[in-house]
């Protein structure tokens, strides 16, 4: 009985260790489509998004078609960090000559 016990249990341990290493994610999550959490749901990120300084999760990715999302990049999500917003009262400068 001891031999059977040792065989079954060692097989379980070896198999689980091998499976854990075999299924270890070896890809860079940023290569997958990125999503951001807008407070109610997950939205695809904009083309020019950026992750600003912060300790929260900036973007997420999904492996099961949107059933669950896993964190990817750290920071605060910004839709377009390089965009300059034109204020309505700002004087208009005509650069065309």
């Amino acid at each position: 009985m001891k031999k059977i016990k040792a065989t079954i249990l060692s097989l379980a341990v070896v198999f689980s260790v091998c499976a854990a290493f075999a299924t270890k994610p070896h890809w860079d999550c940023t290569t997958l489509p990125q999503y951001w959490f807008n407070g109610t749901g997950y939205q695809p990120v904009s083309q020019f998004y950026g992750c600003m300084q912060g300790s929260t999760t900036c973007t997420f990715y999904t492996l099961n078609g949107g059933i669950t999302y896993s964190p990817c990049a750290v920071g605060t999500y910004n839709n377009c960090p390089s965009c300059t917003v034109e204020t309505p009262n700002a004087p208009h400068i005509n650069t065309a000559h």
Partner: protein
Amino acid sequence: MFKRQVLLECISALLILLFVYASLSKFLDFRTFYKEMDNQPLPNSWTPVLVWVIPCTEVAISVSLIFERTRLLGFYSSLIVMGLFTIYTGIVLAHFFPYVPCSCGGVIKRLTWTQHLFLNLFFVGISIVGVVIQTRKRFTQISVNSKNKNSFV
């Protein structure tokens, strides 16, 4: 008796398989696991504790299931842990939280929440079977030992 013992070993092996795999997957991708825990609807101040407590508990249960002396404790711990995970899955399926990113390791995170619930229920079931068989076995051993003692008197 022999069949029951083999069944007990198989149940232990299945639980060891689950807990070793789940804990090792968390340790191997610790950064992601940490971030996933941070995104759970629990206070973020708990994260540094939970990221160590959960996988270490899983390893401890696996070790306790290997040895005969601690096996009953292992089955009870497994029942409690899997019961808690099942309740959590049930709460998620009831849409109690606005969002819940999965916080499990390896391929288990690819399951849907319903599949997750059934997996958890299966392991709760086999933990109960393990507790029952192991308890009966203990009682049988105790009664045999007391009979042997009495026969010497």
